[in-house]
């Protein structure tokens, strides 16, 4: 099949009605005489940093933001997305009613009543589950939802629909880090509060474009640097945080395990190890030490593409430091061996013994708003609330009791988000409900994803804007924006914070949890889904998580507000032999002498013996390496002005104007070979699709690699090119490496004079 035949449609008529269009501040929002009725303390609706901010509200309209200086994490600081987030509210594209697919309407959709839409959804679920079995109806959820909603989504799938097939968009985000952390530490959470960064002598940032994806963290790193810390950055691109770092390791995409193994080899050779910690607090070091012997500096340099001298220097700085903080993000996690990359990074932390103390830290930088809380309470395909396992009989029994059902009525673990698409494509899954997920933009090889959605008998999307994915829905239900509901989210440090409601949902739009409960009621299966308030959901979640690793039982809304957030685990009462829990929870994990419910006092880590695990991390090349036909590496990522699939940020005018359209970044050496100059229309092709964008020729990327940010849909989508290879353990897709060829385009692409930049 030719790539051209598979090109996504331009969808101009749908876009004309539903956007994305750009909103700017106007009317009462620019009227200096208008005083707000109230200001609401809450948090940003975008990334996992969850910066505190205040929304200024007048007549159910958010006028703008006011910094919240007292909130300790960001102290008033915000990135441009946080400053302009208010423009998503009252937006002309906002879904005010339910819609159903209609061939008679130019846009492809016609309005219908909310009640009728709910019964259409319930009828379809009933029919599909009766005809094809319960698992034939799948649910896709998201980690930008509040923890209460994610808990409810898991309960809805597992107890009401009794389908095995629920998964979430954290599958594209947090799962490699989560799996790696569970294997090494027995718990999946950033080990330290961010204030520990300030005390570190060495800060190692691997695969994290901190300045653009977690901007507030820049301040922590640079304050550490001002206090004398050395900053090491591992990235194939010289990102803004790398510009002033002390040591830059321009790793070839997909070779992170080799780099960390090479650093560990030098730490062992030079005896830069904490022998006491290794002996008393860990297991598995000897086998690992033998396995990394082969990673000499020379071989590491050959595989990683980083100079030998730079590798030696990184190992020496890291090895000799008294305190340190290692942080990583999707750059090392979005790989077919993402878990190995994470484990290899953790290995150099454990070998140094620098964890569980002030200034000694390790963390993955959570991506989505509730990337942490959203992966703890049962919307992952193998999970139950409290970080419990759906396959574990004891865990099933506990949650079944809380929910008042028999354990055997809980389904067994289902499949991951991409596998749900494959099963839809294969006809095994016939119906789908999605919320807070835009897979047509965000999943790799998205030409396949569109084809899969088109094969469904019935697809319902809950959203506040008609996302690229919702364009394929049979029914669209108008959900709620973050500012239209309350609840909690858990941010990057494991700190649970309060989202406060600022405005009411407009017209027929409803709070998402009410929509889910309305569907359950229409199905006649509302038992357990009859909550009257968000806090009521949270109170049940506290009980359901009690005794689990992700224990929220001691967390209350009042405590969160009193302490500017509570760090889980936070137990409600003292367990046998355990010290009394503190009201702020557990800011720092793994402190010497700390208690946890798995080790029960035998050690600080979450295994029965209380010891952390070293893991063997053999190096594997990426699934699709370069060859003669496709000789260049494509890597993907983000820009600061856009968030995730852009369903929100591509509608906020000032953010669109900042970086209107995706460009392909090319090193001048490669550009010269391809006869491409800055600004040229350039076609990037993989075995799965092709994409024509303007070239940005710059020296801040490896010459063997090109980069495209992924936030756009349709023919501008980088994920037309990416590969759906997945990590065997975490099932994260390999967004960060695939093979492409690049050439100057013969002509401007068709979209260039038909669509606006954000469309």
């Amino acid at each position, binding site marked *: 099949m030719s790539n051209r035949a598979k090109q996504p449609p331009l969808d101009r008529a749908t876009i004309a009605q539903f956007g994305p269009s750009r909103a700017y501040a106007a009317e009462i929002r620019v009227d200096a005489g208008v005083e707000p009725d109230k200001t609401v303390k809450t948090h940003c609706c975008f990334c996992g940093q969850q910066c505190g901010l205040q929304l200024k509200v007048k007549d159910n309209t958010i006028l703008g933001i006011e910094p919240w200086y007292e909130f300790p994490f960001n102290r008033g600081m915000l990135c441009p997305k946080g400053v302009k987030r208010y423009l998503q509210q009252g937006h002309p594209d906002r879904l005010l009613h339910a819609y159903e697919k209609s061939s008679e309407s130019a846009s492809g959709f016609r309005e219908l009543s909310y009640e009728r839409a709910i019964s259409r959804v319930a009828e379809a679920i009933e029919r599909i589950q009766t005809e094809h079995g319960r698992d034939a109806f799948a649910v896709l959820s998201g980690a930008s939802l509040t923890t209460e909603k994610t808990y409810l989504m898991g309960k809805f799938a597992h107890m009401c629909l009794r389908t095995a097939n629920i998964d979430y968009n954290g599958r594209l985000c947090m799962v490699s880090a989560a799996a790696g952390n569970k294997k090494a530490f027995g718990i999946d959470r950033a080990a330290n509060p961010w204030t520990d960064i300030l005390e570190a002598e060495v800060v190692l940032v691997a695969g994290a474009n901190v300045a653009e994806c977690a*901007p507030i963290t*820049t301040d922590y790193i640079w304050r550490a640097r001002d206090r004398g810390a050395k900053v090491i950055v591992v990235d194939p691109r010289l990102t803004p945080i790398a510009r002033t770092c002390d040591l830059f390791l321009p790793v070839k995409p997909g070779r992170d395990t080799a780099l960390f193994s090479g650093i560990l080899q030098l730490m062992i050779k030079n005896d830069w190890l904490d022998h006491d910690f290794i002996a008393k607090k860990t297991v598995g070091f000897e086998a690992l030490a033998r396995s990394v012997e082969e990673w000499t500096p020379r071989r590491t340099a*050959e595989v990683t593409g980083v*100079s030998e001298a*730079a590798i*030696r220097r990184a190992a020496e700085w890291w090895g000799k430091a008294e305190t340190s903080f290692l942080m990583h993000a999707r750059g090392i996690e979005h790989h077919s061996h993402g878990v190995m990359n994470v484990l290899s990074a953790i290995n150099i932390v454990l070998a140094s013994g620098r964890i569980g103390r002030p200034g000694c830290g390790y963390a993955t930088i959570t991506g989505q708003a509730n990337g942490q809380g959203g992966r703890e309470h049962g919307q992952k395909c193998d999970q139950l609330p409290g970080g419990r396992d759906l396959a574990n009989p004891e865990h099933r029994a506990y949650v079944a009791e809380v929910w008042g059902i028999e354990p055997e009525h809980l389904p067994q673990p289902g499949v991951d988000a991409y596998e749900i698409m494959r099963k839809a494509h294969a006809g095994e899954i016939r119906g789908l409900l999605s919320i807070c997920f835009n897979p047509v933009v965000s999943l790799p090889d998205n030409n396949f994803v569109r084809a899969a959605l088109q094969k469904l008998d019935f697809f319902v999307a809950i959203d506040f804007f008609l996302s690229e994915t919702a364009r394929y829905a049979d029914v669209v239900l108008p959900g709620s924006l973050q500012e239209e509901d309350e609840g909690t989210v858990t941010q990057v440090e494991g700190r649970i914070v309060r989202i406060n409601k600022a405005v009411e949902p407009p017209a027929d739009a409803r709070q998402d949890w009410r929509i889910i409960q309305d569907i359950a009621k229409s199905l006649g299966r509302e038992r357990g889904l009859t909550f009257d308030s968000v806090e009521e959901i949270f109170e049940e979640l506290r009980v359901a998580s009690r005794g689990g690793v992700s224990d929220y039982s001691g967390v209350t809304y009042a405590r969160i507000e009193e302490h500017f957030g509570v760090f889980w685990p936070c137990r409600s009462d003292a367990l046998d032999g355990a010290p009394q829990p503190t009201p702020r929870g557990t800011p720092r994990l793994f402190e010497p002498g700390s208690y946890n419910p798995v080790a029960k006092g035998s050690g600080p880590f979450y295994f029965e013996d209380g010891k952390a695990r070293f893991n063997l991390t053999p190096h594997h090349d990426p699934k699709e390496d370069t060859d003669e036909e496709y000789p260049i590496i494509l890597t993907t990522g983000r820009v*600061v*002005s856009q968030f995730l699939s852009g369903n929100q940020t591509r509608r906020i005018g000032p953010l669109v104007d900042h970086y209107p359209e995706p460009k392909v970044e090319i090193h001048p050496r490669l550009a010269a070979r391809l006869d491409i100059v800055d600004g040229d229309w350039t076609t990037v092709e993989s075995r799965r699709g092709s994409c024509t964008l303007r070239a940005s020729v710059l*020296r801040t990327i490896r010459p063997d690699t090109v980069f495209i940010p992924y936030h756009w849909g349709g023919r501008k989508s980088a994920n037309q090119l990416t590969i759906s290879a997945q990590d065997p353990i975490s099932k994260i897709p390999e967004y960060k490496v695939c093979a492409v060829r690049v050439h100057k385009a013969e002509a401007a692409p068709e979209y260039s004079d038909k669509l606006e930049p954000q469309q």
Partner: protein
Amino acid sequence: MTVPETLEFFVDPGRCIGCQSCVQACAECDTHKGQSMIQLDYLDRAHSTQTVPVVCMHCESPTCAEVCPADAIKRTEDGVVQTARKPRCIACNNCVLACPFGVPKMSTRVNLMMKCDMCYDRTSVGLKPMCASVCPSQALAFATRAEMARLRPGARPVNAFQFGAQTIRTKVNMMVPDEPSCEIVDVTSAMFEPTIGHDILDTVFEGDENEHE
């Protein structure tokens, strides 16, 4: 209430990450909502991600005011140079052309020169300006001189600038590094590229490789 004497504005381009949070936040200021008075540009994107925010430097003897034929631009007692007075401004563009920092903007929509007034509505009641409040890397900071000296030991504030024969003293400070480093790090500098004999490092990162062999 006036701006507390001790709080000053600092621009520290070394910390700028180009996120444009300041540009976006400036447009949230009540006196010019929807319009930003800050310019933020890449120096040379082809070579570096270095960006620089340009805010009004609030000169002691503002060139914009000196060249204004209508005497429309006023400086407050505490040294804040304000947007042109609406009844006086004749939209002649003299200030736009004369400012050595390129700050004033002509709003053709309302025929008025507009510029940063250091968030007078905020700073006059003890709040930080919007841009320095939100800046995620604190490249724009509003703090005391002593705080800055303590927090940024490697840099010092400068507030005198030479433009030809003209010396300009400003209320706003520019942080300059004690030990200037003009080196631009190219990605390829730290790469292992045996095919072109390019396994270099020592020229890029200070120190001697041999010391830790």
